[in-house]
């Protein structure tokens, strides 16, 4: 007999192991995406003309199916986690760059003028004034990036079982165990909801300065 949580041995992971793997494959790209997006967004804010072409390029990248990405990347990074994570990082950037740019631009001009007048240099002004005020917008972007990343990891199943919980879909087919597919879908959804809730909690912690009625969003 085989239960809901009995993972076929070909996946070389326990249920908990698969969850850990799934989270790593989903979240590391979001983090990398964030780290790369911050300076890119800052450049877009600093040089306004840069923003439209950057938006154009990211939108085109977003339009490329992940499968096509894999095909190109397999030549370089093989059938590995990295091959799965690179497209996810790129997709995260597509969401995060505009989110950060809009967030930083939403800082009221009189706040910026006040900061400049008080003797903030450009770097200090960015780190201590613009970024903190952009936090709600950045986290809104992170929520979208995280949830879509968690659901997209499953596609990694197509390149040699690199899809973590997604691999259960494959096993459901070959072992004719539909409950594994249900497990995969439900677990992925629960992970996405929990990650989203965690980000909302982080937002609330980081922004005690937001009016309560708009913080309820």
């Amino acid at each position, binding site marked *: 007999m085989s239960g809901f949580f009995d993972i076929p041995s070909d996946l070389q992971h326990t249920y908990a192991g698969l969850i850990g793997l799934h989270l790593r494959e989903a979240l590391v790209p979001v983090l990398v995406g964030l780290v790369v997006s911050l300076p890119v967004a800052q450049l877009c804010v600093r040089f306004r003309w840069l923003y439209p072409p950057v938006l154009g390029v990211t939108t085109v990248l977003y339009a490329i199916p992940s499968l096509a990405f894999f095909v190109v990347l397999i030549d370089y990074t093989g059938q590995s986690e990295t091959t799965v994570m690179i497209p996810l990082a790129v997709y995260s950037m597509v969401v995060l760059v505009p989110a950060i740019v809009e967030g930083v631009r939403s800082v009221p001009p*009189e*706040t910026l*003028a*006040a*900061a400049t007048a*008080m*003797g*903030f240099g450009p770097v200090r002004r960015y780190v201590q*004034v613009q970024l903190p005020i952009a936090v709600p917008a950045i986290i809104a972007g992170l929520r979208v990036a995280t949830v879509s990343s968690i659901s997209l990891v499953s596609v990694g199943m197509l390149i040699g079982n690199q899809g973590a919980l997604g691999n259960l879909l494959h096993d459901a087919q070959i072992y004719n165990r539909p409950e594994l597919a249900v497990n995969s879908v439900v677990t992925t959804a629960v992970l996405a909801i929990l990650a989203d809730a965690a980000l909302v909690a982080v937002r609330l912690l980081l922004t005690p300065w937001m009016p309560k009625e708009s913080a309820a969003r």
Partner: protein
Amino acid sequence: MIRIDSVTKRYPDGTVAVDRLSLDIEDGSITVLVGPSGCGKTTTLRMINRMVEPSEGTILLDGADIRQQPVNTLRRSMGYVIQNAGLFQHRTIVDNIATVPRLLGWGKDRARARARELMERVGLDASLAKRYPYQLSGGQQQRVGVARALAADPPVLLMDEPFSAVDPVVRKGLQDELLRIQAELGKTIVFVTHDIDEAVKLGTMVAVLRTGGHLAQYAPPAELLSDPADAFVEDFLGSDRGIRRLSFFPSGALELQTAPVVALDADAGTIAARGSTSGAPYLLVADLDGRPLGWGDPKDLTAGEIEPGRLLSHGRPFVHGKDSLRAALDAAVLSPTGWAVGVDGTGRVVGVVSQQAVGEAIRSAHALDRGGEDARAVR
């Protein structure tokens, strides 16, 4: 002293915002820049802390070109207050105020202690310290803005329409507060407004700018009101310039009459005698402490039975010697009897004065003032 020496600002698009402006701003004074929208007030102010660089000319601070010191050092030595306060929405009130001390490298505790000290100075309750800006009213935010600008005790304060976004009552409170703080601290304040009343009230000197950044007149407010340099300034001062000018004449010269004033417990003889000899149609009744209660017709006042509730209102009294002739005239015009009540600092009646007498005082004050002008002209 801040010396603005034939400064011109041409923006990249060709707009000439300020045109060969020269101004000497004395230490410890409030210099107000006033003028219609777009005349270059903000541009001028921002050239002083180098948020805008002049195209031509120089600005000297205590004799040294402001470009000689690092720009952020210069800015940290000048407080800056703007409309809507421009507070950091993500920082508590106390941390907003502590901003510049922190930039100057003070420790957190010392900076916060200083911030709390300033909250008290600008009349903010200590319980607001841990709040965020969105939890404050517009007037309170503006006070935080002033406190933040004062935090590092800068010798210079630049203020760009700081009070224009609050209602008139709050604005008056903030203006009074600023004058009080200035009397205590003696900063060099450059204050931008488009409200001529605010300029006249606050300014030691007022610079009227006209569109295109030309200086139309630079004078103390009393002189501005008595001798506008040209039709533009006269127009800008508005139609009640004469009345406003009365603010600069003290009421101390008014001769107040005490005969038409009787106490609540006055006897019949006094009421009758005062009623017929004082020359006033009504008598002002004061309580036993000397505070005004209201006006009564001597025929209707019965000794020992004066009912304060049935007297005519005495209107708003003026403080003799402290208020101006404008306040005295206002009190007389608003009084139902046409007589103004003068009180001392504690609210006790000093005497009363008729509209005619106020009018005569205004005429003689003007005559004296003109005499002064003639003397200047002769010299």
